[in-house]
């Protein structure tokens, strides 16, 4: 498999993966609700974002963007805190980054061959991921939105030499 417009997963697979991970990380949470093209088209406003890169026979980025209230709810629930409880510094970056890490790790597991997964980078704002979106899934949760994108570099990537 090479870089380019090849996606390691289909939109349906990615959606199912994201929903399973969400329920697992937030054990007592309501599930995510899938969103479809028309309603998911509008960009998120001032989201929290995180991404990981996969480098191997396939090269690309898995990026997560979520509305700030959703990022705060995610963090509180991952830490077992009540909604609205004060969070320690760095907790939001940690939680959003870990969500990207788990989704990225699962996407990488769908790929044949060896490769490496970067540590997650998280922030608000996080510069837009460059490249071509080859797969995406959009979800809502309590009126807030989450998007997961799989991107490949716009320029041809030099794939790793076999070891």
């Amino acid at each position: 498999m090479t870089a380019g417009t090849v996606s390691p997963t289909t939109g349906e697979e990615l959606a199912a993966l994201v929903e399973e991970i969400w329920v697992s990380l937030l054990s007592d949470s309501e599930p995510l609700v899938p969103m479809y093209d028309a309603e998911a088209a509008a960009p998120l406003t001032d989201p929290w974002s995180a991404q990981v890169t996969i480098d191997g026979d396939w090269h690309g980025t898995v990026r997560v963007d979520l509305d700030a209230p959703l990022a705060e709810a995610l963090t509180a629930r991952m830490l077992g805190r009540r909604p609205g409880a004060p969070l320690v510094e760095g907790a939001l970056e940690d939680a959003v980054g870990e969500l990207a890490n788990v989704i990225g790790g699962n996407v990488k597991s769908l790929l044949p061959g060896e490769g490496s997964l970067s540590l997650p980078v998280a922030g608000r704002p996080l510069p837009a991921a460059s490249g071509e979106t080859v797969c995406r899934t959009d979800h809502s949760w309590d009126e807030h939105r989450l998007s997961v994108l799989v991107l490949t570099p716009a320029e041809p990537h030099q794939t790793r030499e076999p070891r």
Partner: protein
Amino acid sequence: MKILVVDDSRVMRQIVIRTLRQAGHGGHELSEAENGRLALEHIQVTPPDLVLSDWNMPEMNGIDLLERLRASGSTIPFGFVTSEGSDDMRARAERSGAAFLIAKPFTPEAFADALDLVGIS
């Protein structure tokens, strides 16, 4: 029993500890380290009965931690809790001496089965 949870993400350490409780393993003495290097230092001072470690961490990753432990002669049971569960990684973990690999997302049942595998009840 002493269990050391190693992960650079504080929220993931909390989730692992919560899941251990849900799996019926809340009675153990749990400690935490945020990367392989700190885990190694902790283990030298207070050897645990089980290490549950993430794979991908800054400073020293989980596989390097395991290989350092085995090179030093340590036989402490070691399991990975990681976001990647490919066949290649499972094979590499096993070759290096890991007892199991739990892929995130995980369930309390996965922890119960894994701890049963290393004789921790």
